[in-house]
């Protein structure tokens, strides 16, 4: 499952629980599945942030115009 699919599934699970579309035991099963997915998504988002920060930090100096 890619990131977008995971997010879609999570949003779907949240809606199903919130609106009580399924009976309680099934809501619990959904909650379990959602918790697992959510920790994966959380990890991916943290990694993405890390990457963006690293790229921002790696901005090379302009050798022609060194900083003053």
């Amino acid at each position: 499952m890619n990131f977008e699919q995971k997010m879609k599934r999570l949003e779907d699970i949240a809606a199903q629980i919130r609106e009580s579309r399924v009976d309680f035991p099934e809501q619990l099963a959904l909650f379990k599945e959602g918790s697992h997915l959510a920790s994966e998504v959380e990890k991916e988002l943290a990694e993405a942030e890390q990457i963006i920060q690293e790229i921002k930090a790696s901005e090379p100096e302009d050798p022609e115009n060194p900083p003053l």
Partner: protein
Amino acid sequence: MKTGIPDYNVSELTFLVKHTLEDHFPVVRVRGEISGFKAAVSGHCYFSLKDEDAVIAAVLFRQQRSRLDFTPRDGMKVSALGRVTVYAQRGNYQLICETMEEDGRGDILYRMERLKQKLKQEGLFNPERKRPLPPYPAVIAVVTSARGAALQDVIKVLSRRMRGFRLLVKDTLVQGSASAASIMASLDCVYARRDVEAIILTRGGGSMEDLLSFSNEDVVRKVAASPVPLICAIGHEVDVSLAELACDLRAATPSAAAEILSAPSFQIKEQLRTVKASLAQSMTHNLEKQSWRFKACNQESLRNLIQEQVNTKAQFLDTWRQETLLMLEHRLIQWKQACALAKEILNRGFPFIQAPGGPVKTAAELKTGERIAIYFQDGVKQAEILADEQQKDSP
């Protein structure tokens, strides 16, 4: 009196001498040293050509002077091409120069010019042969002396302005009689490689004699045969060597060659910087969007949602329990009240009739054959309705 001796006036004699001289020396090449060089306001130049034993006056008219590729001056050894004539007004003879070369260079320049014309005829210098330089060459070969300043200039400029390329240096003799062969061998070596995308053939400035090998016919042809774009940067401006005419691009200096070759990389670095900044900005924005989206369905949110469901269920149970209890209590009170009332009635001597459907209040509730229970103060009797009795008058 006839003496057999020719008899002229000055003009006649001068005229004859002039014709004799001009007929005998219509075109001559004279070698000598310039002395007393004087440029008049008119632009014409007057000077003498001399050697150890003799002097001859010479004139270089403005039009001819403008065609020279050097500035004549005193002490310079030259080879002048012209005709001998007589300047009648002064009674002297002089050399009218058509053209003039620095001595020693004459033959070389002549041969070079001949070669240039020949190669030009062959189309070796044609503009359509010039190929564009690769914008981002990954492998660049420099053919020059490993100890020369030219190489240092090339390295300095390229390393400042480019990234991610390999520089191959082919150490080459670029001066002296063996240099032509060395240049040929180096170019062959570089041409044999498949990874080289651009070649810089270069050396620092020098005298024309120093740079002669760059006009050697074999070298020029080898340069023209390069399989990849070749930049020639022979460090000088005035005398263009033939290799520079045959190459794909001529640069004035080694640094200039490196600058031209690295120009696209240098420009793209600037573009990249901008693109990268906007990329990082967009990605940050996207990440924020995803994080917001995730907030509505992350662990905590899901926990809250399921907790809410659990709470609802618990609340339902609580309510049910409370309501049921209340109802039962209410029923109990009602019952107790009914019991008390019944007891009072019984105590007064009135029996109490109970049908399967509940307490009986009116006769109409009972049908014939229905079984009932009659409660008395001291016990219960079972009975059966035998018949309806029509009541005509109310008591």
